[in-house]
C-alpha cells in the first residue's frame, strides 16, 4: 500500500507539470497571435509614436527579446509571485483580478451549487417516474432549454424582465453607490444566475437520470427488492450510491466549466467578472493578464479533475484496488 504523502507528492507534481505546460502553451500562442500589445498600453497614441519611441516602449515592457527569453523572464517573476502589470489597467495584474474575482465566484459558485442540487433532484425525480408523463414532460422541457444558446436566452430575459416589466436591472453587478447593499446585488444576480443555471442544468440532470436508470437495471436491484425494499427505497439507498461516483466526478470536472463558463453571460450582462476580463485580455494582447487568468482557470480545471479522481477512489471501493488502497481494510458499516 502506498503511503499517503507519496500520493500527495505525486498529485502535486502532476499538478505543477500540467500548469507549466499550460503556461508555455499560452505564453507562446498569445505572442504568436496577430496584434500589438502596445495598443493595449498606449491606446491610439501608438499611431503618433515614432518607430524609435515604439522600440523604447517595447523594451520597457520587456517585449523586445525572443519569446523563450521573455518566457524565462516571466517565469522568474512568477515564481516570486510577480506576474507583471496589466497593459490596459497599468497596475499589478493580481490587483486587477482581485477586484473582479469575487463577482465571478459569486455568480459561478452560486450557479454551481444550484445546478448541483437541482440536477440531482431532477434526475432522481425523472428516474423514479421513468417513462411516466411527468418524466416525459420534464425531459421535453429540459431538452429544449438546454438547446437555447446562452446569449439569446440572456437577451430575451433582459428584454422581458428588465425592459418590458422593469422588475430587474439589465446589467452590472450593483447600482452606483450600492456596492454593499445585498438586496441590490441580489437583484443584479438573478438574471445572469438564471442563464447560468438554465444553460447547464439539464445536461447534468439528464446525466443523473440516465445513470440511475442504468443502475435500476442492475442485478443487485432484484436482491434489494427481495429484501422487501420498495422501488423508491432501492433507488435512494442503492442506485444513488452507485451513481454518485460518476456524478461527483462529473461535477468536479463541471466546477471549472461552470465557474469559468460564465464568460458569455458576463459579457452580455456587462457583469464585471473574470470572464469579461479574459475576453478583453485576449483581444487586446494584455499578455500578463491573459497569462494569470489562463493559469487560474487552467489550475481550476486540473484541480477539478484531481478532485474527481480522489472522490472516485473514496466512494467506490473498486477504484482503490489497483493501488492497494482499501483492500483488506475494515470499515465500520
Amino acid at each position: 500500500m502506498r503511503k499517503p504523502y507519496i500520493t500527495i507528492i505525486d498529485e502535486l507534481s502532476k499538478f505543477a507539470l500540467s500548469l507549466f505546460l499550460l503556461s508555455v502553451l499560452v505564453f507562446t500562442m498569445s505572442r504568436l497571435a496577430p496584434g500589438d500589445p502596445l495598443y493595449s498600453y498606449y491606446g491610439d497614441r501608438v499611431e503618433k509614436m515614432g518607430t524609435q519611441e515604439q522600440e523604447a516602449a517595447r523594451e520597457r515592457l520587456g517585449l523586445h527579446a525572443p519569446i523563450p527569453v521573455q518566457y524565462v523572464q516571466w517565469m522568474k517573476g512568477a515564481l516570486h509571485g510577480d506576474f507583471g502589470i496589466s497593459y490596459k489597467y497599468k497596475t499589478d495584474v493580481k490587483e486587477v483580478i482581485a477586484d473582479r474575482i469575487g463577482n465571478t465566484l459569486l455568480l459561478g459558485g452560486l450557479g454551481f451549487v444550484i445546478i448541483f442540487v437541482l440536477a440531482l433532484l431532477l434526475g432522481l425525480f425523472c428516474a423514479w417516474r421513468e417513462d411516466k408523463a411527468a418524466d416525459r414532460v420534464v425531459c421535453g422541457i429540459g431538452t429544449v432549454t438546454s438547446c437555447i444558446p446562452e446569449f439569446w436566452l440572456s437577451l430575451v430575459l433582459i428584454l422581458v424582465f428588465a425592459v418590458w416589466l422593469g422588475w430587474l436591472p439589465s446589467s452590472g453587478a450593483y447600482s452606483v453607490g450600492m456596492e454593499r447593499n445585498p438586496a441590490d446585488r441580489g437583484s443584479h444576480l438573478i438574471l445572469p444566475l438564471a442563464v447560468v443555471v438554465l444553460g447547464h442544468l439539464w445536461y447534468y440532470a439528464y446525466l443523473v437520470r440516465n445513470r440511475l436508470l442504468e443502475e435500476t437495471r442492475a442485478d443487485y436491484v432484484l436482491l434489494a427488492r427481495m429484501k422487501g425494499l420498495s422501488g423508491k427505497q432501492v433507488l435512494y439507498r442503492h442506485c444513488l450510491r452507485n451513481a454518485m461516483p460518476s456524478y461527483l466526478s462529473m461535477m468536479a470536472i463541471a466546477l471549472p466549466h461552470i465557474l469559468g463558463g460564465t464568460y458569455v453571460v458576463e459579457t452580455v450582462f456587462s457583469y464585471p467578472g473574470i470572464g469579461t476580463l479574459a475576453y478583453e485580455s485576449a483581444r487586446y494582447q494584455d499578455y500578463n493578464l491573459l497569462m494569470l487568468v489562463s493559469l487560474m482557470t487552467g489550475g481550476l480545471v486540473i484541480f477539478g479533475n484531481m478532485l474527481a479522481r480522489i472522490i472516485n477512489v473514496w466512494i467506490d471501493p473498486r477504484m482503490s484496488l489497483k493501488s492497494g488502497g482499501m483492500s483488506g481494510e475494515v470499515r465500520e458499516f
Partner: protein
Amino acid sequence: MDVLTVKNLSVSFYRESGEITAVKNVSFTLRAGEILVIMGDTGCGKSVLCKSIVKLLPDIAKIKTGQIYFQGKEITGYTEKEMQKLRGTSFSMVFQNPMTALNPCMSVGAQIAEAVRLRQPGISRKALRSRVMELLKLVGLDRPEERAGQYPVHFSGGMAQRCVIAIALAANPEILFADEPTTSLDAGMQAQILGLLLELREKLGMSMIFITHNPEVAVRMADRVALMRGGELYRIGDAEEIFEETIHNNH
C-alpha cells in the same frame, strides 16, 4: 401441508412487436420443507416463473391468468405494498451471479444489516451487529467480524454467494427461491454451496424452489422435480421416479 400453490399461471411479455408468452398454464404445489427443483433448458421460462411468483417481473411482463396461493391465502392480486411485506418476511431469493447481485458500493455487512433491519425495524445496534455475525457464521464465512466490513470485490464468487444466502436468510423465509445459484461457480464451490443449502434446509426447515438446467445438481438437491420446456411445465413428480424415467427413456 402445501406452502405454495400455483394454478394455471400464464405470464406474457408485451412488446411493440406483440405478445410473447413465457410461462404457459403452469400448475404445481410446493410442500412444507421440501426442495422442488424446476429443471429445463435456458429460456424455458423457469426464471420468469420464479419472478412472477414474487412479482419482480419487468414492467413489460404481466401475469395473464392463474392464481398463486401462499399458505392457503391467494396472493395473486396483492398490491406492491403487500408483496414488499411478503418479500421481506416469507420469500427470499438467491441469484445466479453473486458478484452482480451484491451492491458493489456497500459493505457486505451493511447489506445484510439492511435486510435484518427491514424485518426487525426497532432493532438495537448491538443486536443488529450480533445478528449479522450470526448470519455470516451460519453460511460458513470465517472471521465474520472482518468480513462484514469488506466489499463484494474482496470476495470470491463462492464467498459472495454465501453472503447472498446470508441476506436471504435474514428474513427467516418460509420459501427460498434459488435461481441457478451455482451456475456461475466452479465445480468445487458448487458442491460446497449445494451442501450449505441442504444443511440450511435441515436447520431452518424452510421450503425451497431450486431452479437449474443441470441434471447433476437436480439429482443432488431434489425431493421432487418439475420439468419445463417452452414455457410449459410438462412433468412433475418425485425425484427418484422422474430420474428413473429419464434414464429409461434415454437408453
